[in-house]
């Protein structure tokens, strides 16, 4: 959290926005709004006329002649009839006329109607903006009248970054900030808390890295990447440490749903790294844990299998190699996907327990194992089918375990 001094300013809102000025501004905006409203009404009239004209033009060719009163100037009529009922003379503008049939005239009129409607839409958008402005002015005017006071506080040290950010945000919308100021402090606090927690977690990871071997480094890398990518979720639920794993899981889920995103994620690390991680998890976590991950992994498997065939295959080889060594730990050799799921469910509790310990994204690696092993099959199938030779890299990792 941002410890340190808190500087602040207290300004009366009415001094920043004198009441009368805001009222004047509000009136001006209202006037503009009414202008636009008039224009809108006019445009709507045009549109209505246009549609009625379209109907008329469509009906006229039904008869050869129509008996009408022909106007003669503005104050006199002649009885007469409409002839050539399929020929229309349309004004295109700039004193250009064209003779068209009824169908063609209807098309012209429809195009005109469309342009009118687009104008109406544009006008509506402008009116919306004006309305927002007007309401904003009204609220400021009333608040200024009530004598609201704007309070700004600045924190230093770690939190300076986002404190200043929030401060800058307030600067951008000073008038809005007054209402938000009351909330702003608490929001800043939350954000600060989240950020500090993130930092702590990262530090822990780094410490773990130093103490442990490469695997841990990879884990942390994975975690770092995951945590970065999962920042949003973390921020939302920056409550408990254990939550992170759970967060990573859903994040992982999400990634799996995206399929490629996960694979890209894996690609970020060298394949060896991912394999190491997988190896790690294979070694660390019993099948029970894997069962949990199988769920995740199945999705990824499917995605991987459908998407990128090459990667899963290569990874599968590696995982196979590992799996071979882990035969003891692997589940029953059934290749079909259904079986492992059941087993997994039994062991979910254990895996959860393990996952809470394991800080890094073990989930990631397991899925890779699964992905590599088979196409759209469960992890168990992957494990059981470990007939392919493992690559030297994986063997290396397995030895560590």
């Amino acid at each position, binding site marked *: 959290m941002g410890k340190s001094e808190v500087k602040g300013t207290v300004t009366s809102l009415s001094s920043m926005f004198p009441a009368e000025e805001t009222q004047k501004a509000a009136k001006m905006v209202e006037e503009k709004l009414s202008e636009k409203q008039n224009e809108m009404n006019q445009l709507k009239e045009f549109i209505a006329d246009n549609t009625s004209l379209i109907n008329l033009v469509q009906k006229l060719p039904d008869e050869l002649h129509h008996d009408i009163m022909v106007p003669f100037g503005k104050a006199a009529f002649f009885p007469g009839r409409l*002839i050539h009922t399929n020929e229309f003379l*349309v004004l295109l503008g700039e004193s250009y006329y064209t003779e068209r049939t009824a169908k063609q005239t209807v098309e012209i009129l429809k195009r005109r109607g469309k342009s009118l409607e687009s104008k109406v839409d544009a006008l509506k958008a402008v009116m919306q903006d004006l309305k927002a402005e007007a309401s904003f002015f009204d609220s400021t005017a009333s608040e200024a009248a009530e004598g609201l006071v704007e309070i700004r506080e600045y924190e230093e040290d770690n939190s300076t970054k986002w404190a200043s950010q929030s401060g800058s945000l307030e600067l951008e919308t000073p008038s809005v900030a007054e209402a938000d100021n009351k909330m702003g402090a608490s929001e800043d606090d939350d954000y600060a808390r989240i950020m500090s927690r993130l930092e702590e977690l990262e530090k822990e990871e780094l410490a773990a890295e130093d103490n442990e071997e490469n695997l841990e480094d990879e884990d942390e890398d994975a975690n770092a990447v995951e945590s970065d990518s999962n920042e949003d979720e973390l921020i939302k639920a920056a409550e408990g440490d254990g939550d992170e794993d759970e967060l990573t899981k859903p994040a992982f889920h999400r990634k799996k749903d995206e399929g490629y995103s996960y694979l890209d994620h894996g690609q970020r690390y060298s394949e060896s790294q991912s394999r190491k991680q997988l190896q790690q998890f294979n070694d660390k976590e019993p099948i029970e844990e894997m069962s949990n991950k199988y769920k995740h992994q199945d999705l990824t498997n499917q995605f991987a299998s459908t998407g990128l065939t090459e990667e899963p295959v290569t990874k599968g080889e590696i995982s196979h190699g590992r799996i071979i060594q882990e035969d003891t730990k692997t589940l029953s050799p059934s290749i079909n996907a259904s079986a492992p799921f059941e087993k997994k469910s039994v062991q979910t509790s254990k895996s959860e327990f393990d996952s809470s310990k394991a800080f890094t994204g073990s989930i990631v690696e397991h899925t890779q194992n699964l992905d590599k092993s088979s196409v759209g099959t469960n992890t168990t199938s992957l494990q059981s089918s470990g007939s392919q030779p493992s690559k030297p890299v994986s063997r290396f990792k397995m030895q560590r375990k």
Partner: protein
Amino acid sequence: MDSLRQEKVQKFEEFVDRRLKPDLVHAIAERDKIFDQQKIFSDLRKNIENLEKNSVTSLRTLVNLGSEVYMQAEVPDTQRIFVDVGLGFHVEFTWSEALKFISLRKEKLERQIEEYTRLIASIKAQIKLVCEGIRELLQIPEEKTVEGRVF
């Protein structure tokens, strides 16, 4: 004393601005409308006289259906013409009757125009009166009217 005068001056000015000037504008607008009507009827008269002169029996015109979309129309018999006599009525006339009616209408319109002109003149006079009063209050020297040429 001065404040009193200032108040009076203000009152006069307000009177001019709020009552007299809008009245003037209104009266002028009404008079213009009647001018337009007069023009319409004189145009009609000219057309009818034209028709008579050329003995036109039938007529082909373009009728505006709205939004400047025209359609051909034929008038087989131009002997009968329906003229707007006001209050939403149109009366069937022959040419000569129509011409007579138009001349009657014109007279009525001219009388109306005269009335409006008188009204406008009176309003203008009132405005001038009030301005003079203000000038007296402020004791600004009167404006001398230019009489004849000044050599």
